[in-house]
């Protein structure tokens, strides 16, 4: 319980999310309807899955710009293969492809010490090209089996299946980050790579795991997206998702320098972005405004998480009421 409370205190974004929901429930007609809520969650779950992977990579101090392209490739593979094989084949091929792309990113970044942004920009271009080539730049409809669509339309225990998948993956990822050795290593590599390495952490392997997971999760998002579109598309799908995911991660308070933040934050970030879009639609606000407000939210979050600002606030608090934490002389040393 104490852990829960400290988590809430460290994640002010949760309160922002709650405040937004309350505000929209009052001002946006139809927002609070069960069907609308479940619809928003369903729509956001795919970006959410991508953001989980992005969070893991960002926590190591890296970044993965190829996720949008992986989503596109994944839709193309699932839809393309579904025409001649049972859908499970396409799904598995997509998962393997996503993981392999992430693995390759990780190996180049960790093994050769290349900069993550350059490596993943190049794989973003290559994978997008591959997806367009396979699909010949046309949407793939064909005869997709109906049960594939269940991935998006279906429900499990009354919860829309995409939301269920998203929630399950998020819980798994939280468990992974908080309760396993590799998860711990991800934080430590991002927090101080040199110290982690000198303490015997295998930095390279940790990074490879992070990028592989990120690619794998992006391909899962692509599979769900295929079910939603009932087609595959190598050209338009996943466009800009890498940036939306990074925005969600940053809004959620995960430091882009690595090592700091909690997955909960990124999930709130995704939900905020999704809810804003939905509420603005319901209120009939010009969609251009949506982009502007998303930008403002991001800027506001980054300002709110600013270390200097926080230090200033906490100093102000300390001078008001000195905390008897440690003996003074000891702290000076």
């Amino acid at each position, binding site marked *: 319980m104490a852990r829960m409370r*400290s988590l809430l205190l460290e994640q002010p974004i949760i309160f922002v999310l709650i405040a937004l929901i309350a505000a929209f429930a009052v001002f946006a007609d139809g927002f609070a309807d069960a069907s609308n809520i479940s619809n928003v969650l369903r729509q956001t779950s795919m970006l959410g899955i991508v953001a989980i992977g992005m969070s893991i990579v960002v926590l190591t101090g890296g970044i993965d710009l190829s996720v949008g392209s992986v989503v596109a490739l994944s839709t193309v593979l699932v839809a393309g293969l579904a025409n001649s094989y049972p859908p499970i084949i396409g799904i598995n091929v997509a998962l393997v492809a996503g993981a392999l792309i992430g693995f390759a990113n990780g190996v180049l970044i960790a093994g050769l010490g290349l900069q993550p942004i350059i490596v993943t920009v190049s794989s973003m271009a290559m994978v997008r090209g591959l997806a367009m080539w396979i699909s010949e730049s046309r949407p793939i409809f064909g005869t997709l089996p109906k049960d594939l669509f269940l991935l998006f339309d279906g429900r499990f225990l009354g919860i829309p299946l995409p939301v269920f998948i998203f929630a399950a993956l998020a819980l798994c990822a939280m*468990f992974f980050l908080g*309760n*396993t*050795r590799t998860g*711990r290593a991800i*934080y*430590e590599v991002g*927090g*101080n790579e*040199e*110290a*982690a*390495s*000198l*303490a*015997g*952490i*295998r930095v390279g392997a940790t990074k490879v795991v992070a990028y592989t997971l990120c690619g794998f999760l992006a391909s899962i998002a692509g599979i769900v997206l295929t079910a939603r579109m009932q087609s595959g598309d190598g050209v338009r799908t996943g466009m800009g998702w890498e940036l939306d995911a990074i925005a969600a991660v940053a809004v959620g308070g995960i430091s882009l320098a690595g*090592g*700091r933040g909690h997955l909960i934050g990124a999930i709130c970030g995704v939900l905020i972005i999704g809810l804003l879009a939905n509420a603005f639609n319901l209120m009939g606000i010009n969609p251009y405004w949506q982009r502007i407000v998303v930008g403002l939210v991001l800027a506001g979050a980054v300002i709110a998480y600013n270390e200097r600002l926080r230090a200033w606030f906490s100093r102000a608090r300390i001078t008001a009421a000195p905390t008897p*934490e*440690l*003996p003074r*002389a*000891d*702290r*000076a*040393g």
Partner: protein
Amino acid sequence: MAKSAGSQDTHATDARRERPGAFLTMAEISKSYPGVQALSRVALEVRPGEILSLVGENGAGKSTMMKVLAGAITPDGGEIRLDGRVIELSDTAAAHAHGISTIYQELMLIPHLSVLENIFLGMLLRNRWAALDWKAMRSKAAVIMAELGYHGSLDVHVGKLSVAKQQLVEIGKAMTRPCRLLIMDEPTAPLNRQEVEHFFEIVRKLQKAGTAIIFITHHLNEIFEVCDRVVVLRDGHLVGESEVADLTEARLVEMMLGKKLSLEKRDWDTKASADSGVVLQVDGLTTSALLKNVSFQLRRGEVLGLAGLMGSGRTEILRAIFGVDKPFSGAIRSQGRLAMFSGPSKALAGGIGLGPEDRKADGLVLSMPVRHNVTLSSLRRYSGLFALRRRAETAAVMDVCKRLQVKYSSTEVPVGKLSGGNQQKVILARLLDAKVDIFLLDEPTRGIDIGAKEAIFELIRELAAKGASVVIVSSVIEELIYVCDRIVCLNLGRVTGEQTREEFDVSSIMINVMGGQRDAHHQAEARI
């Protein structure tokens, strides 16, 4: 202290009569930082065309002094006079305007700009149409650099030059403006012997041209080779000044060390003796960059000190043992078996742990809680089938922290919030929890207060008493003498001396560390 300063002052006054008067005088300069009096009422005179050496141990106040003159920090009190007039060195530009240039140990060059661009960085010449006058700059730079003995291209990127040449560029940069006083912080530290020779030639040339030079160095032979006068600082006080001609190595070291013994001498009960087993044997360790044929042994239950200054190879030795750097040649044996580890995780598995020199940069993940930092190297022990056994982990962390008396409000507090002494204890706790038998500790007491230092030393002795072996690297000789059973002295990548506890003698260790005596022989050989 007053006595020694007084006697040296009479020498200095005698000499002053024969030499031109000082153009720069500093009087009553004080500077304090929270908890530290870095400088306390220090006076200094600089005469035209003299080479003045500023010496003192780490933390004596040399750098603060230098930064005051560079205009990088403003003293709390005191005055600086130039040609008899009081001047205000409020920023670096003011210092430059008064003809005072400073070259820091970390060169302030931009690697991706050319030599020419670096020389005129921040003071580009313009022609009458306010456009950059590269022609004038090029010809001016060519003259200056030729004077300094740099005959390479002015268009090559500075990052591609050797450190020695980069230093010439820094000096050239200082020479583009009228320079009456050039201050250099350990300029010879990164240079090899030939480069040092060339550097001294240049320094003498500048001296002949009337530029005064303040030169910080840790190498005794350099002081005696080029300097005219020495000013000694200790704990922020001026404790002596003397003409070099009137000085001996022993006298200089005595001035630097003073009579202070901040740590009371203690007799530890030592398990190690000449016949305890050797747990670590280093044979002829050589790296292409620095270490030359370093050999020593570490016995079970022994606390061994590696005394050396920055650039002596002390850190490199530990890194080589720990498997971070690959040695060029030589062998490391642990318990009789060859132990050339391919990386830290292997070394830890082999029972060797490292506490790095820079706690914050290399030792700890500051943003992570105490708990994570303590189990960083031993997490495997706390992982169950699926998840970490958090309860067992927390219990172990609390246990080891209690043993080391780490003060923390909770195991979940980010380790960056602890004091320096407690951070160091967290690193020890990590090594302890990783169950290593050989502790390699690089400057374990740097930047922590005296009480915390004693606590750390007590812990180290306790570890040794329980059969662990410890290597401590430090440049503070008194501390090594306080805690070690044996001290190996290092200078410029070589072993220059070894003493056991019964033989400990601060001055002779200091001389060995600063490359006195023996090193002079080496140099004589090298020159022939």
